[in-house]
């Protein structure tokens, strides 16, 4: 009998059960003063080990994963997470080392840090990377701090504006604001590329930088990028590269060559580290040589045959407790060492081939704002033949076929946006199956639209009441108990 009812572990608890077994040293029992201790009885689980395992294993079966099915999520690069990465990340020398050990006692991990940032540098053309930021957004924040510090050091504190295209991901303007910048949004062209007139209109002496992703959020390569870079640089500004879409370019083109000065990479996208249901990721920040002094502390250098952590006096400072998400970039290191020189360069070409194949096969059914070849992802703007069926309905129906929905309603410039990114990891057979399923859904949209509007049908739950969840939030077990008590 499978528990479909989503009972909480607290609700399964029975007083005095325990799912762990400890024996301790025979030290004297210490009693701290009563006034500083807690005396309440918190609502914590009490289950046996078997109950614990059943609880979480059953919960896991309600989740999809990359090894369960295909995730065509645009801009998320949900590629396969190699098992050997996970295995090697559990080696005791990595899991059991205290981060405040001496440098001499951490040569294993420090050399991995150093070599990872070197590989990322050569792939992107940047001079150095810091692996300290914990996530993409954190990397953006770090990169913007570097830009601010650079301008301060130049004596240009009046440079306090960051330009962001209107189709940028929300983290871009948010990151700029929390770094003390003013944000100016510029309208993009219909294909999502930067409108040069709009850019010229706002490019003045107060501009600290421009944030872009390339290919942009519509999957189009910004072919005027060098011109854009020159214009921004001419005004003394810096160019920031949002690495969310880097997968298209690995082995093909390098952000530094396009004129970018600072960038971040999402290791959990481009370099196969697991998404973990939402984290932990890793957002390394890379810079050109004039900016290395500003990288967050500590930096890792190789001097006198030793890897060392150094604290640079011009650094923006510390952005996290220790050395970033170490066991995450360790996985990226393993991935890059497995592919090596021979295969890393194939990532971009293979990803772009897969995306164009799917785009071609489905172009008769969906509105395609962009006719040219796409990069690693492409956007559809709703069904050609049916304005009644929304992107949300198609997305939910896909779940019934064991596939995850693509990215929906982003970028905002297309009202019924559906962004599809197959990644290079998927086989031709998987792509063909996806295409067949989409064709089936297109057919259903004409013949049985209700099936889509009420999808999904085959999961553990159907469509959810998100409005009530936000109006009257129940966010903890205690709040649930209080609600149940007040209703009885």
């Amino acid at each position, binding site marked *: 009998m499978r528990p479909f009812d989503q009972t909480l572990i607290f609700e399964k608890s029975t007083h005095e059960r325990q799912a762990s077994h400890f024996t301790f040293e025979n030290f004297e029992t210490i009693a701290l003063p009563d006034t500083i201790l807690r005396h309440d009885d918190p609502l914590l689980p009490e289950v046996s080990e078997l109950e614990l395992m059943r609880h979480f294993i059953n919960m896991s079966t309600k989740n999809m994963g990359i090894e369960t099915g295909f995730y065509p999520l645009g801009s998320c690069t949900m590629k396969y997470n190699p098992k050997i990465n996970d295995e090697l990340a559990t080696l005791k020398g990595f899991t059991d080392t205290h981060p405040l050990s001496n440098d001499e006692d951490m040569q294993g991990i420090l050399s991995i840090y150093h070599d990872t940032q070197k590989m990322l540098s050569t792939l992107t053309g940047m001079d150095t990377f810091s692996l300290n930021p914990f996530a993409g957004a954190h990397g953006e924040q770090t990169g913007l701090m570097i830009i601010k510090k650079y301008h301060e050091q130049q004596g240009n504190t009046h440079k306090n504006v960051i330009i962001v295209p209107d189709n940028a991901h929300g983290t871009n303007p948010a990151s700029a604001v929390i770094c003390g910048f003013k944000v100016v949004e510029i309208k993009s062209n219909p294909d999502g590329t930067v409108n040069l007139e709009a850019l010229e209109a706002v490019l003045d002496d107060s501009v600290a930088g421009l944030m872009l992703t390339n290919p942009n959020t519509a999957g189009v390569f910004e072919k005027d990028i060098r011109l854009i870079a020159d214009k921004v640089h001419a005004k003394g500004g810096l160019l920031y590269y949002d690495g969310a879409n880097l997968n298209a370019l690995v082995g093909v083109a390098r952000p530094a060559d396009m004129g970018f000065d600072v960038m971040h990479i999402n290791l959990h996208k481009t370099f196969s580290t697991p998404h973990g249901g939402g984290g932990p990721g890793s957002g390394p920040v890379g810079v050109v040589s004039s900016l290395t002094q500003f990288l967050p502390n500590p930096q890792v250098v190789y001097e006198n045959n030793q890897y060392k952590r150094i604290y640079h006096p011009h650094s923006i400072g510390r952005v996290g407790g220790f050395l970033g998400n170490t066991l995450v970039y360790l996985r990226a290191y393993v991935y890059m060492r497995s592919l090596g020189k021979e295969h890393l360069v194939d990532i971009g070409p293979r990803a772009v081939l897969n995306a164009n194949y799917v785009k071609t096969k489905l172009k008769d059914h969906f509105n395609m704002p962009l006719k040219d070849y796409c990069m690693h992802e492409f956007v559809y703007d709703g069904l050609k033949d049916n304005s009644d069926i929304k992107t949300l309905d198609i997305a939910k129906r896909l779940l019934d076929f064991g596939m995850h929905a693509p990215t929906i*309603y982003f970028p905002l410039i297309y009202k019924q946006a559906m962004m599809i990114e197959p990644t290079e990891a998927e086989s031709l057979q998987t792509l063909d199956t996806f295409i067949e399923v989409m064709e089936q859904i297109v057919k259903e949209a004409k013949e049985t639209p209700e099936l889509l509007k009420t999808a999904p049908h085959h999961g553990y739950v159907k469509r959810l009441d*998100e*409005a009530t969840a*936000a*109006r009257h939030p129940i966010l903890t077990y205690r709040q649930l108990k209080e609600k149940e008590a007040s209703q009885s």
Partner: protein
Amino acid sequence: MGTKLYSASDEWILIETDQVSIGITKYAADQLGDIVFIDLPSVGQTIEKDGAFGAVESVKAAADLYAPIAGEVISVNQSLLDAPELLNEDPENTFIVTLKIDQLDIDGLMDETTYLNSKN
């Protein structure tokens, strides 16, 4: 019966003899979707013309509320705190705040026809 005018940022004002009430238009409510929360100003607070005086959140969006007219807040619609969905049910007749105003500066505000045309 008072005069109802509309702002470009999708608020309406209803001008009555001694007070002005402000709400959001049906267009705004439809765009937002299921409204889940409203951030109301305090009674006694002064708000400026075109200044932000609160915010409305839906499941998928958030929007600031801009005052089409300046004044002092004399009442807020408390029932919206427990039932924000009232704004979806009848936005054109559900007030959010009422103001006491000094001068009637309706510069930039539209009548219903002009507003509805501007939305096309």
